[in-house]
């Protein structure tokens, strides 16, 4: 079976189509449970030929679960998927492809050492016997790229392409199997304005070809520019589906973010003290970041927000010695810790830890924690050189155990589980363990990179409570987050970063999600016009 779609006469007459045509795919009462917790409440979702159906909602609202179900990556716990009025079980990503569902996800799926055409046909059967049909391959690749009006040569190596061009290859790859449904998950993240425009033109081509597009984005302006209908998701619910022309931006933001978090976020008092960290005119070598300046004072929470790939995290990582700096000056507590002209560079994890800075990365699996080790070992690792954990060469294991008992009380986890290996714990607990590294040493400045990514609501509340504790104890927090709701409700001041530039500093009294997304979108429209 394959989803069939007829090119629409007029792609924008969606009301008409809704009445006349059948959807390409229809999800009926589909839901998803993971080990007892619900990721997706029963919901209906459909896609018509030649429309762009946008999905809007914050991180963890259930968008990715929904996409995973459509692309066959995971099976729904209940409900039905209908294609041409027939119930279908999409068993795998490969099966979904055969049905005509292609997806471009945020993750990188290209092989950099291969050429564009080799990547396009990777995993598809274009061979006679055991040999690839190189000439046919070349011809098909050319055709696909021409049809999409992409300015790419089939024999270029993917690793020599720009980020946007690589994105295009991914889209072309999804496209060459001539899908009926195309899923684009935040395709403009890390694209420049010009490249974004090109992408939009391409989506218009897709529409006119009668392909149904599912478009996920955090940027409202894109949704209004592209989509015919928009579905809003929150907390695993699909709240509503609107025809895009019938609602406005404010309404959309309110639907998605609501006022649900008002009581959920603690009010954190800021007792601003003297200046702790100041960064001036920072430029980085391997990042977009140009000419960034910001200050953090003692006892406050400063938000640093931007969409994925904006460079917000790079600024913070540079302060911990994880990114190469081109120029700029960094001052920490009256001492210059980086100044190229004076030849000062003390930015190394050990040195900055000793000065009272603690950076906790966004990706806890690859950078933050040792998954095969237990909670105790993980928490004490950065602090083992302190006198309370070791004397000279030796680790004071009794003291360590004793300290961990109080840590477990503070984390609200079972003291016996201190010896449990992290691999066996939930993502939320893992995240708390990472934060707990700050319990056992004196930290003046926490740099938290997406501290609530991929954790459930309950743990989020607890993490906010911990931030409050840190702040009450006089520490400062630099909170890097692409979750606007979080930044707006937790931070005392917010810096907005977009494509490596610090756009604005917003003082406490005017922070709200609406202002934040307004800033990001203003910039967006300025670039795309």
């Amino acid at each position, binding site marked *: 079976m394959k989803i069939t779609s007829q090119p629409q006469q007029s792609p924008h007459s969606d009301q008409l189509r809704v009445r006349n045509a059948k959807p390409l795919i229809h999800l009926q009462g589909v839901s998803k449970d993971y*080990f007892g917790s619900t990721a997706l409440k029963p919901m209906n979702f459909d896609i018509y030929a030649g429309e762009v159906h946008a999905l809007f909602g914050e991180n963890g609202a259930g968008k990715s679960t929904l996409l995973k179900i459509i692309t066959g990556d995971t099976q729904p716990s209940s409900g039905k998927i209908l294609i041409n009025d027939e119930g279908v079980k999409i068993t795998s990503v490969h099966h979904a492809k055969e049905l005509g569902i292609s997806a471009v996800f945020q993750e990188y799926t290209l092989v950099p050492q291969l050429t564009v055409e080799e990547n396009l046909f990777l995993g598809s059967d274009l061979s006679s016997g055991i040999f690839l049909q190189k000439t046919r391959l070349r011809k098909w690749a050319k055709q696909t790229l021409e049809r999409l009006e992409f300015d790419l040569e089939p024999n270029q190596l993917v690793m020599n392409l720009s980020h946007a061009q690589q994105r295009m290859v991914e889209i072309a790859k999804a496209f060459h199997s001539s899908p009926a449904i195309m899923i684009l998950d935040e395709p403009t993240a890390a694209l420049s304005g010009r490249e974004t425009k090109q992408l939009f033109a391409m989506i218009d081509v897709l529409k006119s070809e009668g392909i149904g597009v599912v478009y996920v984005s955090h940027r409202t302006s894109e949704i209004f520019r592209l989509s015919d209908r928009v579905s809003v998701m929150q907390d695993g619910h699909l709240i509503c589906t609107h025809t895009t022309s019938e609602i406005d931006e404010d309404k959309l933001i309110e639907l998605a973010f609501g006022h649900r978090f008002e009581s959920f976020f603690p009010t954190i008092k800021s007792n601003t003290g003297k200046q702790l960290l100041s960064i001036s005119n920072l430029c980085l070598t391997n990042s977009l970041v140009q000419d960034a300046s910001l200050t953090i004072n003692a006892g406050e929470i400063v938000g640093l927000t931007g969409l994925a790939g904006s460079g917000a995290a790079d600024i913070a990582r540079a302060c*911990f010695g*994880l990114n190469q700096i081109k120029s700029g000056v960094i001052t920490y507590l009256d001492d210059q810790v980086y100044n190229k002209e004076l030849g000062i560079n003390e930015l*190394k*994890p*050990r*040195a*900055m*830890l*000793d000065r009272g800075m603690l*950076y906790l*990365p966004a990706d806890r699996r*690859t*950078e*933050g*924690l*040792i*998954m*095969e*080790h237990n909670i105790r*070992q993980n928490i004490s*690792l*950065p602090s*083992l*050189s302190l006198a309370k954990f*070791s004397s000279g*060469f*030796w*680790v004071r*294991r009794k003291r360590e155990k004793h300290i961990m008992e109080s840590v477990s009380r503070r984390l609200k986890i079972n003291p016996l589980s201190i010896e*449990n*290996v992290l691999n*066996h*714990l939930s993502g939320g607990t893992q995240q708390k363990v990472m934060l707990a*590294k700050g319990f056992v040493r004196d930290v003046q400045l926490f740099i938290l990179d997406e501290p609530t990514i991929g954790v459930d609501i309950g743990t989020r509340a607890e993490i906010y409570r911990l931030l409050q504790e840190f702040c009450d104890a006089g520490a400062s927090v630099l909170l890097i987050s692409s979750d606007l709701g979080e930044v707006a409700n937790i931070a005392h001041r917010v810096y907005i970063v977009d494509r490596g530039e610090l756009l604005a500093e917003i003082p406490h009294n005017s922070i709200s999600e609406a202002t934040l997304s307004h800033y990001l979108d203003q910039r967006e429209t300025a670039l795309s016009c």
Partner: protein
Amino acid sequence: MLENRVKQAPSSWQSYFSQAINFVTFLYIKGGVLPWFLVLAVLGFSLSSEYFLTQTNLSGISMHATYLVLVAMAQMLVMLTAGLDLSVGVMIAMTSVVSSLTMGAMWSGYGSGWESILIGCVAGLCACAGIGLVNGIGVAWFRVPAFIMTLGMSSVVLGLALSLTGGIPIYGMPPNFTDIFGYGVWKGFPVPILVTIPCIGLMYLFLNWTRVGRYIYAIGGNLRAAQLSGINTKMCLIIAYTAAAFFTGIAALLITARLDTGESNLGVSYPLLSIAACAIGGVSLQGGVGKLHNVVLGAVFIILIQNGMNLMRINSYYQMVAIGSLLIISIMAENFRQQLMLTYKNKTGSSI
């Protein structure tokens, strides 16, 4: 009534059976493959040869195991950092050559020769630790993959050892060296065992009670996380490789004493055997996981297998087949264990 009983009987029998299966699974998840291997081997060999369980044979096994225990501990140290040391074999050769040459040159032929023994041992250990240092610097500073670094070094060191000796065994060491470190017995214990036991203790303290030991586990567990925790990972790697070489050097001296010659073709089988001992003992090839006592048991197990096969008069070529297979099977069993652990966790919701 009767019908009910008849119906119940198989079901309760089944439940016992499934309980037993669950229990066995639990034991397997908890203890890994090594205990099963050991039990099977001891059972099999003691049934096939009545000599196997005699005191003479068992003390012979433990005596022979000392060398591999030392080398396996060294290998473990490197494997914990997510590395692999293929040069342990040539380290043994080099240490043997250097120490025997030095002793031969120092000893006048008269008297006890204690100074020449001491100086020879120190020279051998220094040469060995030097090889480890080069390994460590190559891996830590120049980021050569451990596999390549130690493979390359095996050729370099073997070449040097051969050029030192011309491939000819070296004689002329003081008889005390062999008499004491090779065949000496003190209060009923062979001296090699008396040397090895403190080494195990030292290694235990190093791995579990020192900061560097903890850092070595951390580096193997997640190098990035260790770096972000402010650990001097390069220094720790160099220490790990050098310490590994040092322990290998001790094994090499004991082997040299046992043979009473310095030879440049010693130790060929040790890279494989030591890696096998670690793998069977549950040291993760990805690094960061492994317990010392299991590695010691793993080494003893391999010697035990070799001994048992010798008693059964199994051709040494087939013995090679057996040891290689054991290595591969132990890795497969470990992967299977990981999988079981996951399903067990999903089923019961608790972790072990």
